[in-house]
């Protein structure tokens, strides 16, 4: 939901230009930021985990730093790689 291309036929190597371009769904990023703020307001101890393959920079940084405000990232690319290896 972070990108309008949904990661389809798109490769992330860590270059910032791959993340911050016109494909970014800015409304989705704004929603996630508000969602994390709200969740923390309802329950300050809430564990907020982002499931993200791309490694979006700042996803787990606080909003004051320009981040999206998640506490953790479930890096799905790694378990996906395990499945591939085992197969």
């Amino acid at each position, binding site marked *: *939901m972070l990108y*309008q291309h*949904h990661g389809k036929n798109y490769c992330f190597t860590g270059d910032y230009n791959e993340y911050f371009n016109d494909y970014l769904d800015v*409304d989705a990023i704004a*929603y996630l930021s*508000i*969602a994390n703020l*709200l*969740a923390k307001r*309802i329950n300050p101890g809430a564990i907020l985990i982002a499931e993200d393959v791309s490694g979006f920079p700042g996803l787990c940084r606080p909003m004051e730093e320009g981040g999206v405000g998640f506490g953790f990232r479930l890096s799905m690319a790694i378990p996906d790689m395990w499945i591939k290896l085992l197969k």
Partner: protein
Amino acid sequence: MSGNEEKVHSFTYFKNNVLPRIKKLGYKAIQIMGVIEHPYYGSFGYHCSNFFSISSRFGTPNDFKALVDAAHGMDIKIVIDLVHSHAARNVNEGINMWDGTDYQYFHGGEKGNHPLWDSRVFDYSKYEVLKFLLSNIRFWL
């Protein structure tokens, strides 16, 4: 929900039979998948249709609450998978085409279809979408 037999188990079965074992093994948190109602079992809970209802094949809302309470009583935290990235495309059961249009909660046209997941893509610029999803967070927490 998982169990010993090859069948779909319930929240209650999990609470009574699996949770004590998880506690005994020393885990401090568990993530439960597919808690939100989803018509297609094979979607593993990712094709959500009714965001404010519990997955009925596993039990009732009270069954789920009892499971959460039992886990908290064992000092085990519960994490659920709240899928706000997309929604089931089912029209009869879900929120797709709820008002007859394809753009009430989603992007209209091809932009509203997820190219890999066979689902509908939310339009997060819509005020009602934000209200819907944010109130959903409040509901589950």
